[in-house]
């Protein structure tokens, strides 16, 4: 165990391990207690259902005064996630508050998969497609889920 890891991070990690968020696995890296390997299951009744998405989460030095950094490592077709896996989510940016936690962030990401928000886009062409032809966008999202987020 890293000697000087802030108590808050230790506490949060213990709780995450003891009572994981359903559908989400977050495991701290062996060599870096601020770095988490995350697996999110695509929520039921979303275009991502059946997929398992790899993410990575890092608690910067300023945490909890600044937000965790999170990124999708699995390719995903979603209006609020860009081609490099960066997530457009208010609580990861200006709406971050130290009262939030890793758990809240993971829950919000899961919710974002259930409810894509093309009006607050990051990935412009995906958001555009989502607005112009939602059925087609959902079909593409399902196809990507099958192609990139399903283990063979």
């Amino acid at each position, binding site marked *: 165990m890293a000697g000087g890891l802030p108590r808050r991070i230790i506490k949060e990690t213990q709780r995450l391990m003891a009572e994981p968020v359903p559908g989400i696995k977050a495991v701290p*890296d062996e060599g870096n207690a601020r770095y988490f390997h995350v697996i999110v299951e695509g929520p039921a009744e979303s275009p991502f259902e059946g997929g398992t998405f790899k993410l990575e989460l890092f608690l910067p030095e300023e945490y909890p005064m600044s937000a965790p950094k999170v990124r999708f490592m699995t390719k995903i077709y979603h209006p609020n996630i860009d081609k490099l896996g960066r997530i457009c989510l208010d609580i990861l940016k200006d709406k971050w508050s130290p009262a939030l936690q890793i758990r809240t962030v993971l829950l919000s990401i899961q919710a974002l998969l259930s409810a894509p928000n093309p009006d607050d886009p990051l990935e412009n062409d995906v958001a555009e497609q989502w607005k112009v032809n939602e059925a087609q966008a959902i079909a593409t999202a399902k196809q990507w889920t099958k192609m990139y987020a399903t283990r063979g």
Partner: protein
Amino acid sequence: MAASGGKDTVVVPRNFRVLEELEKARSGYGDGTISLGLERNDDMTMSHWQAMILGPPGTTYDNRMYSLRIHAGENYPREAPAVRFLTKINLEGVDSQGKVNTSNFINWNYNCSIYMLLDQIRKSMRNPRNKKSSQPPDGATY
């Protein structure tokens, strides 16, 4: 683990470090004499980069644009990136195929960045040993 005994040494993991560098590169560096970005904007591994260096005035490199290709591997930034000139250049520390020998330019460590290395390469063009050396025709490539 934290070598400094009891202190929480924060190590930014590779991908987040690379993202930081990418974001800095997008907002541009100083006078624009060095520019840097990913080769493909959907490269989720963020490994393949390209860069452009504008040769410094008052040297034999003046007014020339140098394209470079950079590979930042899995072990970056613990390991230096592999840098190669695509535009032909005669510069100490760059071999006959355009490959950059990092240690000629920087004493690489975890806190170094791709930009810092490129900046050192550009600064070396001003070095008295280099600034007058004869150059291949402008725009020639390897």
